[in-house]
């Protein structure tokens, strides 16, 4: 069972599968870094993104790329609604962190129930078939899904990286992440930037859900578990470290998928909760990476400092 071919096959497949995990984790980490919320409503955005694509492809019989666009439109629309009618209002009202937490959780469940009402509880996929043709590359079966999925993920990550590094808005975003009030003093429109980061997260998770939904079955509650995975990766990657979250997501994805080698498949679902728990118990502040000299280093202050502010 442990021969090289099997192991490398499983490693490849789990690597390919972790592509969407990476996207979910990056989106979650981005919103946590910039908007300073544990956005559990991301599950709702994911659900919207998926079902928009689903409606496009399966119900309206649109071609795949149109469904993809529709999916992104769905995720973005939901992100917009969340920020505009939710977070912005709560911010203005100076609602407590607990209030915002409850809001994000309840919204994602509200969406899940709404979707259950509309589409039922049966799992579905974006395309009629979730099986993809396979080519053998050096003894490893590579499905037609794998390469585009990895390519899309790399593309999104590169885009995000370039955006944060080179675009004006990206720099503004980092400034807001570092110190929102200070950024506002320098004339950055905080609300616009926060909206932008929410919308970008919406795009990212919609791409992720399109990938996921074209390969696995989705039902209304599925997004919650996928999002918890992203939460675990975000914590392991170190709060405020987007790329750390991405790397952690790959590692967790590979571990979970290759766990078929070690544990019965019935228990695979349980692994997610083990990750979550161990992330919090063992690595609450993420893996300690060597400190980079970077002007934005202060973001690495753990959540404690985020919530306490400085002790004056």
């Amino acid at each position, binding site marked *: 069972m442990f021969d090289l071919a099997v192991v490398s096959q499983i490693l490849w497949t789990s690597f390919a599968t972790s592509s969407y995990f990476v996207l979910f984790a990056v989106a979650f980490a981005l919103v946590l870094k910039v908007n300073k919320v544990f956005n559990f409503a991301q599950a709702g955005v994911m659900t919207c993104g998926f079902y928009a694509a689903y409606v496009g492809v399966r119900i309206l019989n649109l071609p795949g790329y149109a469904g993809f666009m529709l999916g992104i439109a769905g995720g973005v629309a939901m992100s917009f609604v969340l920020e505009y009618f939710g977070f912005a209002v709560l911010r203005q009202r100076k609602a407590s962190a607990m209030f915002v937490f409850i809001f994000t959780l309840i919204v994602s469940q509200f969406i899940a129930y709404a979707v259950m009402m509309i589409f039922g509880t049966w799992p579905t996929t974006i395309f009629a078939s979730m099986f993809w043709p396979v080519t053998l590359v050096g003894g490893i079966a590579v499905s037609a899904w794998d390469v585009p999925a990895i390519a899309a993920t790399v593309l999104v990550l590169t885009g995000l990286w370039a955006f944060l590094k080179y675009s004006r808005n990206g720099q503004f975003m980092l400034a807001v992440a570092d110190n929102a009030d200070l950024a506002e003093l320098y004339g950055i429109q905080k609300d616009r930037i926060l909206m932008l980061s929410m919308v970008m997260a919406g795009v990212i998770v919609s791409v992720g859900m399109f990938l996921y939904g074209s390969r696995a079955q989705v039902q209304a509650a599925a997004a919650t578990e996928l999002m918890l995975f992203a939460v675990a990766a975000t914590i392991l990657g170190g709060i405020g470290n987007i790329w750390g979250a991405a790397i952690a997501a790959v590692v967790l994805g590979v571990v979970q998928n290759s766990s078929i080698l070690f544990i019965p498949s019935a228990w695979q679902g349980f692994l997610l909760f083990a990750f979550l728990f161990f992330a919090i118990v063992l690595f609450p502040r993420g893996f300690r990476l060597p400190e980079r000299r970077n002007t934005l*280093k*202060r973001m690495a202050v753990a959540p404690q400092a985020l919530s306490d502010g*400085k*002790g*004056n």
Partner: protein
Amino acid sequence: MSSTLEIRGLCKSFGGIVVADSIDLDLSPGRVLGLIGPNGAGKTSLFNLVCGVVKPDAGSIRLDGQSLEGLPTYQRARMGLARTWQNLRLFPSLSVMDNLMLGPRVYSADRLVDVLFRPAQIRANEAEARDRARDILERTGLSPIAQSRVQDISFGQQKLVGVARALMNDARCLLLDEPMAGVEGQTYALIQKAVRDIAASGVAICVVEHNVAFIRDLCDEGVFMFAGKVLARGSVEQLIADPHLTELYFGT
């Protein structure tokens, strides 16, 4: 005389900002030390380090000879360390009286088991704490507003409540962070008197203050801090007269 608080080689930096650069400092019982320095010198940070709000990079802190290393804030408080905060940090959902009631080193309801199974003891502890609080409120002139909400009283009175709450601790060492900022008139005199009384009872006190008159009236000695370093220690007059320090202070 041995010192109540003994700080040796204390270092701390946030990213690139050095807030404590191998600080050595002693606070002696019954003496009031004034901590002077420009904004951002690291005065509040020094208090945070002593209280365990911020963890030092290096160095040791001893209270009455006992090391405070690694102890959480609440344990330091129980060992006799009390402080006030630059931005007050009173409990807005509690009355003045209840703000004080939480101050004793040993609180009536610290142990849940006692709350559930020893109501008589709780009642006795509460009564004792209340008497103590009344006494302190009396001394600080806050008795008339004991039942008011802290938002409803004047800023000077709020500052005074902060000091009064710290006094409940019966502390060995008291750290006051800008007790006079924004305070004037009668309250000014009340705070001054309160600090004098506490010092007279053998408590070691450290006051951060920008109000030079207050420092001069009150402190036995002064320390000048700049960029996380203790630059000079001496009588307040000396420190104020030093042109070099004045220049640093006003940042010309």
